[in-house]
């Protein structure tokens, strides 16, 4: 078990390393940062002083270590747009993204899990039909287009819900549905196939033969055994939702990390963008790592492979 966790941890660190090398390498490929910070009135002495202060005169690998060291302390540099520490800009956007992610996560589970169970149990009925259509559309619907169409229907035509930005609870509905839609369909698909498999098993047949009621079989015997895959999937889901916020927040002008990253691209605000990317990568990897460990705890067979 310890060996398994250790190996997983090692992968996560490796991915973080690779991502940070990509980000850092690209940032240096873009040119010497002094070109951005120093004006045409700066002297050669200023240039050298900056180089010394930020280690720009040192070889690439040393520069990377300095940069990573700063990043680990939350110092990504000064935002080129707001002229304050990028960390402050990023920090104030975190709550909005977390609220949105949690909201859509809840939606994915509340909709996906029961509908998946119903779809499997009532196979071939209307429930199954609704479930499978949702699963199919979840894969094929462009998430941003779904968001735009929801705005069109519920904000423009019907005028029931606000079209974007933060506010009272009604402002959460459309963004959370947009972000959670695909996740719910994934959850539904997994629950459905796991339930179908379990319902076909010997012990369910035995329970049925012994005269256990249908509700007892579904919720006690079948779901308990079918839940492992959806449960671990929900961990991966959280990571996926986090990166999905880039799209949803752009559609709804939601003041979170994803929107910050996109606007940073257009403002050429590199410190902010690198900060967001590294932060999200760390959270994403941590969630995935926790999922893997949770999986191994619940299902001992995983540890052996």
């Amino acid at each position, binding site marked *: 078990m310890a060996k398994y966790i250790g190996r997983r941890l090692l992968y996560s660190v490796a991915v973080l390393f690779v991502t940070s090398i990509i980000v850092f390498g*690209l940032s240096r490929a873009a040119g010497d940062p002094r070109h951005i910070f120093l004006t045409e009135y700066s002297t050669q002495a200023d240039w050298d002083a900056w180089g010394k202060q930020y280690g720009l005169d040192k070889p690439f690998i040393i520069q990377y270590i300095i940069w990573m060291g700063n990043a680990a302390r939350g110092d990504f540099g000064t935002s080129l747009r707001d002229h304050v520490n990028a960390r402050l800009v990023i920090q104030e956007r975190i709550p909005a993204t977390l609220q949105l992610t949690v909201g859509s996560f809840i939606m994915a589970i509340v909709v996906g899990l029961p509908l998946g169970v119903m779809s499997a149990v009532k196979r071939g009925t209307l429930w199954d039909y609704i479930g499978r259509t949702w699963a199919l559309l979840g894969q094929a619907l462009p998430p941003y287009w779904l968001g735009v169409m929801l705005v069109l229907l519920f904000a423009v035509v019907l005028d029931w819900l606000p079209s974007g930005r933060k506010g009272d609870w009604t402002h959460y509905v459309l963004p959370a549905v947009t972000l959670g839609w695909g996740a719910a369909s994934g959850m539904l698909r997994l629950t459905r196939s796991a339930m179908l498999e379990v319902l076909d098993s010997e012990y369910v047949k035995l329970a049925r033969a012994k005269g256990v009621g249908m509700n007892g079989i579904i919720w006690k015997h079948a779901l308990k055994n079918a839940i492992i895959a959806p449960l671990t999937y929900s961990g991966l889901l959280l990571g996926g939702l986090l*990166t999905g916020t880039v799209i949803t927040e752009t559609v709804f002008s939601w003041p979170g990390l994803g929107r910050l990253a996109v606007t940073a*691209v257009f403002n050429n605000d590199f410190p902010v963008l690198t900060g967001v990317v590294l932060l999200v*990568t760390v959270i*994403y990897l941590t969630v995935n790592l926790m999922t893997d460990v949770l999986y191994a705890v619940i299902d001992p067979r995983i540890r052996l492979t």
Partner: protein
Amino acid sequence: MTITSEIIKPIDDVSKGRLQTAYGWFRTYPVLPVAIIVILLIAVAFAELITSHDPERANTLDDNEIAPFWDSKGSTEYILGTDHLGRDVLARIIYGTRISLLVGVSVLVVGGVVGTSIGIISGYFGGNVDEVLMRLVDMTLAVPFILVALVVAIILGNSLTIIVILLVMFFWTAFARQIRAETLQLKTMDYVAFSRISGASDIRIMYKHILPGVFSTLIVISTLTIGTVILVESILSFLGVGVPGPTPTWGAMIADGRNYLTTGWWIAFFPGIALLLTVLAFNFLGDWLRDTFDPKLRQLVR
């Protein structure tokens, strides 16, 4: 995941009406998906013949935001209306097909070659080679793709080549995993052993005996993946880091239309429908190909 799995083979019965036979066909073969894909290919090849409108420029200065033809304010000149700059929406959708399919196909060709090679090498040699390559797959899948794409866009700018390279760097994994699993089975076959006994080199065995064996899997994965590739490309376009304008792309059209929902809903609506139908068509065709030619893949694909 599939609806096509419920396929019922039609019984050839002369007493059946023509309508019923057509319905049987419809259920057995992916008629609709293939029809949609053929329409897409025609749009790609003959865009200039189908529409006389310029997708990148308006005809006149005051033709902006004209409604589709069935609207009282619409005209048959612009069947699906015009956008905020007066450009024909239908023409832009038709020309947009080019970018979508060009990106989709090139990513699959390059990614397919890279992924298949890595998959075969990984499965054939096993051991440390396999371990390293499969960890590489794991690592690629763990990178938050869209965010990295944003970083690349800010530095290298956005062009068709960069988009394709970016997508290849991510989508080769889809091939590598499945092809490796397939290779693991194939290499235990007797004909592979005979070939080795008769002195064939590793490269020859991989090329002559393993590759033909994984070919059907390759086709199935390509078809199942192309929809996702097109979808991701459109996401990049929507975020403004895809193929740069004024070249029409479906994602960028939806991004434009988003700002004109109150006055011109059709600008964002129709490109999305085109995208949805395209992705659905490829997914259905892929499902059908898998069920028909490669049933054992069902267990591999989640």
